[in-house]
């Protein structure tokens, strides 16, 4: 495998764009990323487009028609909450493998006010099982995962709530976040419950957004930048068999095996990280991932948030961007945007000068869950 450099990166501010369609949003991010890289669409040899809910609408090809239909291969990927990360990975491997020298990953989603994830229909079932045979809604699923941590380690709702407090504090500094508003602990705990123990402010907002990244081989990157940012590893896993899974989604093991493999490939350990962006779709998830990513020992996540170790300025800042809780979670865009955040590129600023106050040089680790919505129960 060859070294792969990130040469251009961009994300749009997440939010609601009722006057634009998803292709326009994605195209805007793609053009900005190309500008950031100092290249044009004519330099791009392969495009991978991540989009979940409209992936059957050939978003990738439509983006190319909008920004320059050069005839290169276009792949549409759909992989639940890991859709954007998977687009990045496929683009990364297309260069790492030696098949292409310049690849672009684009993530996009337009959800509007779509509401609860996992509320989709039950296919050809006679009747929806939600609320009758337990819950498959994401707030419930991630609520259960948090409750499992409570059961194992005595973690409290207030400790989970502190994740929302921290990430919303961070989000205030991020102009690309959907929400820039602090939520003190009392406010988080007193907000209406969505799926206990997660209250409203412990759930990420849905919305619209797009992000794009241009990657190049080492030789090619030299033509466009003097400061290439190298990708240390990109790992995708799926959840292995466990006696309770798939009745209960196991968000932990899948993340643990991905992290272990990523650390091994990068030749580092969690102690070497200076910054982490992780998938805090719900406040409960973030604490679990401290342990899954090896940022602390099992059972120590509650203490870690209590001590402020994951705040900006702490031992290992987590979600300095404000996380999904502040930024929003337009599904297909999220994984790409998390990498953009680590790259530290902001529109017009470029890789060379785009680091804001919340950025530190570091390696990105974004857990790549595969959260199957199609469920057996």
């Amino acid at each position, binding site marked *: 495998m060859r070294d792969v450099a990130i040469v251009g990166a961009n994300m749009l501010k997440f939010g609601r764009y009722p006057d634009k369609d998803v292709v326009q949003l994605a195209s805007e991010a793609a053009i900005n990323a190309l500008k950031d890289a100092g290249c044009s669409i004519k330099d791009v040899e392969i495009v991978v487009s991540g989009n979940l809910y409209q992936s059957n609408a050939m978003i990738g090809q439509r983006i190319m028609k909008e920004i320059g239909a050069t005839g290169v291969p276009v792949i549409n990927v759909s992989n639940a909450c890991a859709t954007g990360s998977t687009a990045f990975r496929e683009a990364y491997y297309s260069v790492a493998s030696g098949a292409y020298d310049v690849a672009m990953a684009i993530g996009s989603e337009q959800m509007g006010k779509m509401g609860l994830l996992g509320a989709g229909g039950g296919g050809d*079932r006679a009747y929806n*099982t939600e*609320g009758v*045979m337990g819950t498959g809604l994401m707030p419930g699923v991630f*609520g259960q995962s948090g409750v499992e941590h409570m059961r194992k380690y005595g973690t409290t709702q207030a400790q989970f709530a502190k994740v929302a407090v921290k990430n919303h504090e961070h989000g205030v500094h991020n102009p690309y976040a959907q929400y820039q508003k602090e939520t003190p602990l009392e406010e988080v705990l007193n907000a209406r419950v969505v799926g206990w123990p997660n209250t409203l402010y412990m759930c990420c907002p849905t919305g619209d957004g797009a992000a794009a990244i241009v990657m190049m081989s080492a030789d090619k990157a030299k033509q466009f930048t003097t400061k290439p940012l190298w990708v240390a590893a990109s790992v995708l896993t799926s959840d292995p068999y466990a006696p309770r899974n798939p009745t209960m989604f196991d968000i932990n093991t899948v993340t643990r095996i991905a992290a272990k493999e990523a650390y091994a490939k990068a030749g580092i350990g969690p102690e070497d990280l200076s910054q982490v962006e992780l998938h805090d779709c719900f406040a409960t998830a973030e604490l679990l991932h401290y342990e899954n990513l090896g940022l602390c020992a099992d059972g120590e996540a509650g203490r870690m948030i209590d001590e402020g170790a994951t705040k900006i300025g702490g031992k290992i800042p987590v979600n300095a961007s404000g996380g999904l809780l502040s930024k929003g979670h337009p599904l297909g865009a999220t994984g790409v945007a998390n990498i953009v955040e680590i790259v530290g590129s902001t529109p017009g600023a470029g890789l060379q000068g785009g680091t804001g106050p919340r950025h530190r040089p570091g390696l990105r680790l974004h857990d790549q869950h595969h959260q199957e919505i199609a469920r057996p129960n």
Partner: protein
Amino acid sequence: MTQEATAPTKNPILPFIRVPENFPDEPAYIWGVQCKACEAKFLGQRTACGNCGSTGPFEEQRYSDEGEIYVFSVVHQSVPGVEAPYIGAIIDLKDGISVRANVYGLDPLKPSTDWFGKKVKMYAEKVATDKDGNDVIAAKFKVA
């Protein structure tokens, strides 16, 4: 036998619930299969074993109607038409298989870690009528 004047068919909401002909006199139950190769248990029928990949044989199992709460969430915001709040739990059945289910007999407005390990018992209930007029039967759990 004529078709007329027969009671509506009772259909399980999910394939791993079996509803006997003379339900409710004969209780409905949860069933599944066990892989003979690795002993992994599953709800309902399998194409192959999700653990070891074996394509069989599988042994059919009638699972217990007794179990305990492993974990839960209380869902307050649900899909349109579904009454909330409700307790959505993962129930560990006695046989070492888990099922996703609603739990009744606890106050959803007072979620508590005391609920861990609480013994529950399955009961079957009509929850809807499908578009053909048949009864839809679900498995629910109440505190034992």
